[in-house]
């Protein structure tokens, strides 16, 4: 299937100021470098407007990512308007699962922009390389400096201040490269207070404090092979979630891996890369700062994953392939301890994830065949085995009497696409079919409070696999001065998993109004369309625009929740010497197809205007960029369709940042 390639940035050099190395699909394997087979765009982890962005802000600039926001931190990325259960989110192919039952810690919250080099977003079944999926995959690529650069040391330092929420950040990264040894290190600190909305009212509990550091060491064991160890440590503390009745006291993640890479000079095998990984996440909520809370509750969560990912690239003539083996074992634990008002009474205890083990093993293949000068066929598939084990299955059996403790599922996936490039036009059509297993919460969750619709959610271990049938197409035109591209995709998803009100049972969390159980709809349909265009009006004046629309309905033609209304982003970029000036406009039209059944209300249209200017200068061996700007310049008061509890977004935000590269 066609890769909806938003390989934002493939350069291994990251933000370093080296001469830009382009070594995609390097035929010479003499030097050990990153070999990319499907690499299209190159972009740094920064948006047009802002050079110091968070991972979330960066993802937001992609046209098939939208976000559910519960505050200023840890946004949940939706791919093709589908929530994180339906996509695979990985870091260099490694599976990580958040430890929070309320999705306050998506995987993207455990990395930082200065230890990433790119984010690969693949839509639909074409993203099944990293495991079974419906919506697609988001792979966060870590920075890895190549061996043998001319300059041994390189690095960058970035600092800045955002005035709206007093965010102060310091990001630094340093790399060393020699013929046999490479090291990458980074450190990042962000601290922000409460932000203010468009009415200049403070949004309480929206502060955050994040520390992230990473280290990668690689050693060349032979001219064609290397070993690498990587680690990321991330800690978030005192993070407010204004849309939730509780905050985060502390979350920590340690993400480690050791890999071995072998290149081959001859034959069809090109690269073989095998990695063992381990990651552990702990997440502790805190409700003591909310006086409205009647009950004090401890809600800690832990998620531990061990895994193996082994990938081989093959190429012969016009044919190339990628084969990947994925295997992991995850243990998810989440507890609720409720304290009675009279503390002398006994505390009440339950598991919201009753020690649920998920094991997955799967083999995925992506093939691509350039069968003529203008056309290419991509096809592939995956077959996965998914196993769940609930240690304290008695919790699950309350709502599902007699449900088995263990469950195995087979998850097949297939996809194919055809690409045609004729002169300046390119077209593609594709199709896909794939299964996914229910997530831990959907299968085994127990009284997980959802503050959006204010229901307690109960998992169902007997849910059927969700089965996706998908079709997509794109058409584009490109010349030296302009480009335009339209993309559509359509998903028909059988056994679509949603929460439905249960007539039995009563809420456990005191804020909730009822109990919902995860059940399968007969089917649901999702349709996404995106239109992108860019035009270079003058040599130094560039325009870009994106228009997206999505529509999703359930089996009774009712609306599904969290579907983005018609939305747009448009930006102008002007450069003059060492000065640059950017302005952008983005917004959503009114959300008319909302879903009251899932707790949504209509959201009015909004439009936000942003502007920034930067100046680049050199001193001694350093290159520096200074940027000032404002987001939401007109201080619009708004909240989007996906803001929980309609919490208002940030009002006018002036920002400054300085980046120094050497």
């Amino acid at each position, binding site marked *: 299937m066609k890769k909806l390639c938003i390989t934002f940035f493939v350069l291994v050099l990251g933000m370093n100021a080296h001469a830009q190395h382009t070594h995609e699909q390097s035929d010479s394997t003499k030097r050990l470098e990153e070999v990319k087979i499907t690499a299209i765009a190159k972009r740094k982890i920064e948006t047009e407007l802002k050079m110091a962005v968070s991972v979330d802000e960066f993802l937001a600039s992609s046209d098939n990512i939208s976000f559910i926001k519960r505050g200023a931190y840890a946004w949940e990325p939706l791919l093709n308007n589908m929530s994180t259960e339906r996509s695979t989110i990985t870091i260099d192919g490694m599976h990580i699962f958040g430890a929070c039952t309320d999705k306050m810690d998506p995987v993207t919250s455990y990395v930082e922009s200065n230890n990433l080099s790119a984010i690969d977003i693949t839509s639909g079944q074409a993203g099944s390389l990293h495991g079974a999926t419906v919506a697609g995959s988001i792979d966060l690529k870590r920075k890895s400096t190549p061996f043998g650069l001319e300059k*041994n040391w390189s690095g960058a330092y970035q600092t800045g201040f955002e005035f709206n929420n007093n965010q102060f950040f310091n990001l630094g990264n340093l790399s*060393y490269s*020699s013929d046999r*040894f490479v*090291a990458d*290190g980074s450190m990042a600190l962000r601290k922000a207070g409460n932000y203010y909305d468009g009415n200049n009212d403070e949004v309480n509990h929206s502060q955050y404090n994040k520390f992230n550091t990473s*280290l990668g*060491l690689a050693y060349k064991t032979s001219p064609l092979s290397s070993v690498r*160890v990587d*680690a990321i*440590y991330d800690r978030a503390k005192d993070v407010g979630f204004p849309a939730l009745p509780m905050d985060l006291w*502390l979350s*920590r993640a*340690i993400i*480690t891996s050791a890999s071995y890479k072998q290149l081959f000079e001859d034959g069809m095998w090109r690269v073989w890369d095998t990695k063992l990984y*381990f990651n*552990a996440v*702990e997440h*502790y909520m805190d409700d003591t700062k909310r006086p409205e809370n*009647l*009950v004090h509750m401890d809600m*800690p969560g*832990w998620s531990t994953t061990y895994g193996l990912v082994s990938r081989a690239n093959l190429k012969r003539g016009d044919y190339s392939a990628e084969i990947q083996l994925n295997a992991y074992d995850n243990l998810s*634990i989440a*507890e*609720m*301890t*409720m*304290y*009675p*008002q009279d503390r002398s*009474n*006994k*505390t*009440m*205890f*339950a*598991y919201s994830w009753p020690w649920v083990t998920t094991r997955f093993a799967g083999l995925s293949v992506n093939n691509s065949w350039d069968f003529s000068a203008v056309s290419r066929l991509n096809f592939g598939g995956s077959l996965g085995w998914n196993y769940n084990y609930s240690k*304290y*299955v*008695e*919790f699950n*059996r*309350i*709502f599902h*009497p007699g449900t088995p403790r263990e469950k195995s599922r087979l998850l097949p996936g297939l996809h194919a696409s055809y690409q045609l490039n004729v002169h300046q036009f390119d077209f593609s059509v594709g199709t896909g079919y794939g299964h996914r297993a229910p997530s831990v919460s959907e299968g085994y969750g127990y*009284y997980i409070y959802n503050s959006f619709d204010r229901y307690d959610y109960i998992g169902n271990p007997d849910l059927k696999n969700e089965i996706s049938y998908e079709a997509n197409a794109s058409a584009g035109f490109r010349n030296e001065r302009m480009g335009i591209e339209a993309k559509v995709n359509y998903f028909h998803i059988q056994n679509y998993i949603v929460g439905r009100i*249960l007539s*039995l*049972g*009563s*809420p*456990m969390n*005191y*804020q*909730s*109004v*009822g109990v919902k159980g995860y059940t399968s709809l007969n089917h649901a349909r999702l349709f996404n369309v995106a239109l992108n265009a860019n035009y270079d009006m003058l040599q130094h004046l560039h325009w870009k625009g994106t228009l997206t629309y999505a529509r999703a309905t359930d089996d009774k033609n009712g609306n599904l929740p969290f579907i983005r209304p018609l939305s747009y982003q448009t930006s102008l970029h002007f450069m003059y010497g060492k000065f640059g000036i950017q302005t952008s406009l983005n917004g959503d039209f009114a959300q008319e197809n909302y879903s009251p059944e899932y707790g949504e209300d209509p959201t009015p249209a909004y439009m936000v205007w942003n502007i920034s200017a930067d100046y680049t200068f050199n001193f001694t061996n350093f290159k520096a960029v200074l940027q000032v700007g404002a987001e939401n310049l007109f201080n619009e008061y708004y909240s989007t369709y996906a803001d929980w509890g309609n919490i208002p977004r940030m009002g006018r935000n002036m920002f400054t940042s300085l980046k120094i590269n050497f």
Partner: protein
Amino acid sequence: MVKGMNMKTLKFYTIVLSLAVASCTKDKTDYEAEIDTVVTEYDEFKEAVAIRSEGYDVSIEALNGAFYKGYNEIRLKITNSQTNEKADASAVTFLPIKTDAEGSKFSCPHLYDLVSRPDDSYFSGYSVFTDESSTNGSWELYISFTIAGRTYAVKQNVSVQEQANKNLNMTTFTGKDDEQYFIALVSPQRPKVGENELVAGIYKFNKPINPPSGDFPDLSQFSYTEVSGYTLQLDPRMPEPSMGNHSSPNNKDLTQQGDGLYHGLVNYTMTGNWTLNFIMLNQKGQILKGTVVPDDFTPGVEGVKSELHIDILF
């Protein structure tokens, strides 16, 4: 030099990482211990009282070797004091009598004619003590048995202890039919989160028609029976105000089974204080006791209990 530094960095990070990996900030709850510590479990039959009478030893065994307020299963053994062999006894009867401070005498639900279990060499029965022994009242067991045509009668003071396990609580009440009823929980002694088979005994005091006569005890004054064909409707809820009248799904009302006891299903969604709200129906489906409890979610308000309920804790 550079490499050396990096090796040091590597070592440093390895140590930091292993520390970080090894230690969680907060400990996980030891769930087994969580549900373990609360209840006193009675799992072994031990001798609770021994009586020697005219060449025979009568031994009554109960769980934990003690009698508690509530339901007590008993096993009675009779041995020949000389030979220490099992005596060939029959017609074994059992009657608990409580004497209060004023000297009035009462009994409690019990099985009068103990059932012979020849394979296990004991006689089986039960007693539902309605009070613990105290200065206001003491309990005495009246036992009789027949060996070789001769009837022996013995009595013995026993101590009834406070029920330490709230899951074996009991309640006494007068039904709408003006009869006195007793409901005693039998099982589970140690509930778990999830589905539990709930077993209770329901007993009725047979009101004497005539005043006491003859030698004490006059059995007609102390007659209790297991009621049959009743239904005990169940609505378990957490009374704690912060739980807002929380309940659980998939419970099953208690109905009588072959062992004479009433069996049903209760689901506990979490540990803590629970109230078993009951409505007792007779054979004709008429309510004898109990009220429907509200099922709305009322955070911050202590749950309303049925007029017929038993509190448990686990």
